[in-house]
């Protein structure tokens, strides 16, 4: 299981990524053909490693907050007291997802100014939607006999939620988190247009100075992060879902 071909490939991607982040000079020769004479082939206006850490930090904070809020909201609207909001919240999620992430980001700037704040807000707002949608799906499509049995066994509402409903909905919720993380990883790069410290800085510097090597390395780092995080979360989902077999 551990050493299948895809896993070896992922390991290789991880090793190359780490090597590139820690010792970018090793890769200089590969990137030099992409740049014009005398232009630097490796991003030189900051540490790639630190930009990656900051990029991941932004995505993590936004996703974590989005997960907490989205799952709480989904729990509220699937309880009896909040049931009134369920149809509306579905509509709002559908509407929200038609808003382009760039528009959310651009509209956050006038309110929150430049820097990390508008990016965090935009990522948070945009990240809410897939998590909320999936948490709703997870909590509303539980096998009815199981919920019925939990009630019949004398569990209180909160016992049912914590012992039965959330564990069963967890794989579907995680799918939402995964979608959200992948969208956020890419969208965070746009944050650099409003001066957030992310890997988008590398790409934008490349676009501005016509340096293809910058664009490529910025883009590939984000893509590699996205693929690795996506697959890791998917693996986790499968492990959980395997146990939850209904």
């Amino acid at each position, binding site marked *: 299981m551990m050493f299948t071909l895809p896993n070896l490939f992922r390991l290789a991607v991880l090793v190359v990524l780490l090597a590139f982040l820690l010792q970018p000079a090793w890769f200089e020769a590969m990137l030099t053909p992409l740049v014009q004479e005398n232009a630097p082939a490796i991003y030189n206006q900051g540490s790639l490693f630190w930009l990656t850490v900051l990029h991941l930090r932004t995505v993590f904070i936004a996703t974590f907050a989005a997960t907490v809020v989205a799952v709480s909201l989904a729990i509220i609207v699937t309880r009896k007291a909040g049931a009134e909001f369920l149809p509306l919240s579905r509509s709002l999620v559908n509407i929200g997802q038609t808003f382009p992430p760039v528009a959310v980001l651009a509209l956050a700037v006038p309110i929150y100014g430049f820097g990390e704040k508008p990016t965090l807000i935009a990522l948070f707002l945009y990240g809410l939607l897939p998590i909320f949608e999936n948490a709703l799906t997870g909590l509303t499509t539980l096998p009815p006999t*199981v919920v019925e*049995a939990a009630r*019949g*066994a004398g569990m209180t509402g909160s016992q049912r939620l914590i012992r*039965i409903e959330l564990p069963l909905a967890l794989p579907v919720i995680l799918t939402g988190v995964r979608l959200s993380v992948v969208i956020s990883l890419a969208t965070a790069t746009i944050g650099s247009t409003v001066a957030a410290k992310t890997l988008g800085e590398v790409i934008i510097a490349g676009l501005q100075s016509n340096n293809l090597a910058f664009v490529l390395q910025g883009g590939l780092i984000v893509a590699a992060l996205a693929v690795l995080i996506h697959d890791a979360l998917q693996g986790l989902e499968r492990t959980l879902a395997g146990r939850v*077999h209904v």
Partner: protein
Amino acid sequence: MIQIEEVTKRYGDTTVVNGVTLTVAPHTVTVIVGTSGSGKTTLLRMINRLVEPTAGIVKIDGEDNRSIPGYELRRRIGYAIQGHGLFPHRTVAQNIATVPTLLGWEKDRTEAKVEELLKLFQLDPADFGPRYPHELSGGQQQRVGVARALAAEPNVLLMDEPFGALDPIIRSKAQEDLTAIQKHFGTTIILVTHDMEEAFHLADKIAVMDKGEVVQYATPAEMLVKPATPFVETLVGASERPFRLLGIETVGEAVEPGSAEGRPVPEVLSQRDALSELLWSGRSALPVAAANGEILGRVTLQAIVKRAARPR
């Protein structure tokens, strides 16, 4: 004892259960039958307050079932449903331990109970305890479902079509098991089904429901002999009546002095099965033996045919 008094359930303008009164004697099996939409499941669910009645009272051992919170009530009453409803993310042992855990039993006591129940249902605790529900066959899942319902030693067990998802062979085995376990614990069982055969097989008393009302509440024999309404008559099945009647009584009750050829049949065999044996083997009488092998006499084709006739 369970007393259902003038219980009514309405959803908006639709009345699902209409003024039902029913008393269930302790340590008996009562089967509620009816077509789908007759209100039988709703009636059952009002006993453990999964559904709150619009009007009327349900008393368990003389106490109004609203005197304690619903969830506490349900911990005291066993509940088994069609399709078992096992928690897919918990092992068999954890599933069975659900109510004892909720009641805060000590670990040793819970474990001992789980082991006892698994053994009772012919499942090896070491093998089946750690398995997840999806690793069991349909029949095993159903048994675990019933074991879970019985884990906290409830006096009352409610069952909603518990055998509905099983194939015929496993179903009759499960019914035998249930009868044995009912004898073992002396549990008062109320079971809902749409299967008349199952009702006659298991019930001490049958309640027939139609359009939210109980149209007849009687012993199986009474129901065959004196169906209260044409609906009950249809449900019982006119062409099945003599066989159902024979199915209720045992050979022991029809035994007469005399001898007969061939292998004896046990006295606990139903008269219906004896008739079947008589017809199939082409004999006109069978020897009847007690459990210890002693020959008690014989049962004749003529006697059985007479017993199948409508009593006057």
